[in-house]
């Protein structure tokens, strides 16, 4: 049996969600230990995602959280963390490629309007006026002004660095395998190496892994894993800064040009829904070619840009495609922030703030109830 370490809060997962929770909790004076099964900080989706910081294109229950993040967290995050997160509120352009997909853009506009988020519908010509590189096959676009992007690597490691500066203890390369309920409260975390950590609050911020861990205290979340792939190109002259996405058949494709000058693009080949492996996220032969074709459909002018690196990651796909956030009331002491379904980066810092507030017994900045773990009910 290993040694027992105690803290006010034990966070499982060192990514943007876990590190943000640790940071904001430490800022409130709590002692925090962060555990990660991986040897590298934030080695899951936090370091593999596209870096979108968006309100548009989200499902309704998460819009308040995203809006709070974009309005109140991201604009000052670089100063807060003393690192350049490369956050730019440079807009988001969402393309349609068929006439049939245009109503989908209109629906996004309408849904967001209900939350005070303005989305502008553009004809293909108007889109090209905003950005001369937009391809001929585009039939229309939706523009959201308050969207943008940031550098996920620097933000995640910046959050880790800031948390560490505030005394958060990190232990990496040791997987949490069990949560133990002590006198009716989730208190203990047991690791694969036999170490034991005890805390008032146990936070599951480890993506798909949260499911198996929650299972050890009789709680389940309807998550599954999906592979997702991205690539980055050589740097080039600044062309456009806004985020890019699409609706319809091209809905999986997204990307933007980074401050460094390189372009990040993600997309689908079809295989990622049912990959033949389960452990390390590995690229699939057909996917980078598919992303290349998708990107060139958006912006033919990028055709000669050279791809220099591809990578894959797992997303924790929730049944209804938005995250489970907040306390698990059946098991006091247990909190969760997982199942982000590829929306975690933008929402990570605000989730951390929210959970720290809940742990401290304060009124949270955003109501987490619509995102609670027990929302899953039959649609019939």
């Amino acid at each position, binding site marked *: 049996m290993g040694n027992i370490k105690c803290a006010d809060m034990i966070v499982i997962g060192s990514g943007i969600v876990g590190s943000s929770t640790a940071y904001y909790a430490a800022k409130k004076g709590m002692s925090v230990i962060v555990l990660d099964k991986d040897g590298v900080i934030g080695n899951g989706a936090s370091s593999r995602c596209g870096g979108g910081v968006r309100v548009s294109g989200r499902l309704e229950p998460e819009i308040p959280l995203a809006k709070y993040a974009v309005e109140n967290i991201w604009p000052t995050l670089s100063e807060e963390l003393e690192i350049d997160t490369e956050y730019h509120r440079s807009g988001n352009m969402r393309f349609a490629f068929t006439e049939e997909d245009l109503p989908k853009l209109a629906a996004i506009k309408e849904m967001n309007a209900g939350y005070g988020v303005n989305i502008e519908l553009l004809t293909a010509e108007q889109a090209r006026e905003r950005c001369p590189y937009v391809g001929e096959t585009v039939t229309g676009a939706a523009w959201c002004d308050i969207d943008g992007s940031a550098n996920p690597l620097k933000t995640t490691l910046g959050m880790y660095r800031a948390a560490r500066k505030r005394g958060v203890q990190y232990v990496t390369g040791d997987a949490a395998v069990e949560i133990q309920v002590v006198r009716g409260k989730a208190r203990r975390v047991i690791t694969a190496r036999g170490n034991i950590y005890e805390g008032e609050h146990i936070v599951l911020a480890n993506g798909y892994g949260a499911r198996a861990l929650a299972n050890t205290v009789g709680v389940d979340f309807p998550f599954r894993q999906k592979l997702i792939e991205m690539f980055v190109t050589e740097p080039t002259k600044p062309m456009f800064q806004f985020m890019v996405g699409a609706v319809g058949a091209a809905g999986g494709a997204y990307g933007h040009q980074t401050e460094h000058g390189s372009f990040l693009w993600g997309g689908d080949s079809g295989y990622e829904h049912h990959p*033949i*492996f389960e452990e*390390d996220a*590995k*690229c*699939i*032969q*057909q996917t980078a070619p598919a992303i290349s074709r998708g990107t060139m459909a958006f912006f033919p002018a990028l055709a000669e840009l050279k791809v220099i690196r*591809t990578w894959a990651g797992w997303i924790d796909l929730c049944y209804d495609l938005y995250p489970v956030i907040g306390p698990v009331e059946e098991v006091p002491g247990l909190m969760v922030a997982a199942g982000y379904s590829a929306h975690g980066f933008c929402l990570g810092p605000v989730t951390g703030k929210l959970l720290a507030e809940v742990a401290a017994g304060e009124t949270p900045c955003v109501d987490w109830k619509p995102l609670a773990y027990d929302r899953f009910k039959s649609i019939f």
Partner: protein
Amino acid sequence: MIKHYDLIVVGAGPAGLSAAIKAANCGMHVIVFDENQRPGGQLFKQIHKFFGSKEHKAKIRGIRIGEELLAEAEKAGVEVSLNSIVLGLYNLKGVSVMRNNQVEHFRGENVIIATGASENVVPFEGWTTPGVIGAGAAQTMMNLHGVMPGKRILMVGTGNVGLVVSFQLLQAGCEVAAVIDAAPRVGGYGVHAAKVARTGVPFYLSHTVVKAEGGDHVTGVTIAEVDSHFKPIPGTEKHFDVDTVCMAVGLSPMSQLTRMAGCKMIDNGGAVPEKNEYGETSIPGVFVAGDVAGIEEASSAMITGRIAALGAAGRSGFISDAEFTKQYEACVNSLNQLRQGMFCKANKGRTDILTTDEGYPLSMSLLTKGYMTEEELAKFTNLNAHQTGVHPVIECTQNIPCNPCQEACKFGCISVGTNITNLPGVVAESKCTGCGMCVANCPGQAIFLVNEDTGDGFATITLPYEFLPTPQAGEKGTALNRSGAAVCEAEVVSVRTNKSFDHTMLLTIKVPKAYAAEARFYKPEKEGK
């Protein structure tokens, strides 16, 4: 469509080609991918004669071995796909390749990764200045493309690469200002060092580059002696006017493809995939061969290539168990011969070896200055039978795996024995005819024919010579000693060339007999233009 092969080989260097030939001869459907315009890997940059024994293609220049391998591959029906960049090694042993401006996907029942090695670098002030290059770059420029890397060059590194490339630079008509190394001992074969030193190139061991000078390109370099922590000692700086600094500071396995595929990696002179005795990695059917599995010489790479091919053939039922065992054992025997002696992997970095396997004291001068003193040489009583008349004098004093001298002499004058890392010995009472085959065939250029007394107060020395312009009989020049210092006037008696010498000239010079044991190189009166 995804094309399937029994075996996909990545890399058409010595390991990859040897693997492909062996596999094709076992009946496998094989394709070899290489990103270069020409196959052969580094072989076509290796213009020196290889070490080893006959079965390792010893005394043949790397370029010719490359040609032989290509001919064999063609005969065996191996499909060699050039200008083909392997993008990655994926699941299901998937190999994606860029060729003809498109991407093609392949899957191999077996995959052999034979991507070789890449050069290490050492950073110093100014190391990004144009004119600071890798030794491999120098070889590519001068030996493949006929372009001089620079006019005056400082070589960093005394491993075999640094020594061989220094010699090649001299052959290409460049000047080598010095060869330096931070280590206290010459890392490569003494014979390679000796052939550079005797042309007059100074060696500075325990020295490092302090700074490469120049704005848009290198104009000079400052070196300094280092202390035991490899830190420069102030006040020991030396400056050289050079236009090129060439780095030969070791090689690392290019194991990225195996890492990408998820093979278990271990540390073995750089990260290499863990492998079994057939080169098979932790992923069944994915093999490694050559430098990517651990840095060795090209001769070893060819054998590890064949072993991996046998492994793949065995795995997929292309070879009977009996035949597999027979061929595998032959390969292992051949490989073991090369893996003996003081330069073998287990001895890498050791500085406490003081004697040869035979018990002769190693030359410290050779290890620190690149050349032997006469006193040190005299202790190797096996190397000079001191006969009257013409006889071979061998200056090969380290246990390196090599025996062409024994093969070359049809008159039994030279003996190495069955263990090829033994030092050669001159057989007493044997009769040298002066044919010079030993001189021409010694890959280390370490054999000389000496007649200490021609009866007229002179001695003749026949030495291997691979420089231009070709000296002419009757011309006069200067005899240099082992350190490259001028010792006396020399007259060229004869210059022998022969197809079997493969461009090594046998230059016989006449010097006063007092210099018979000292004169080991010839410098023409006027420097070759």
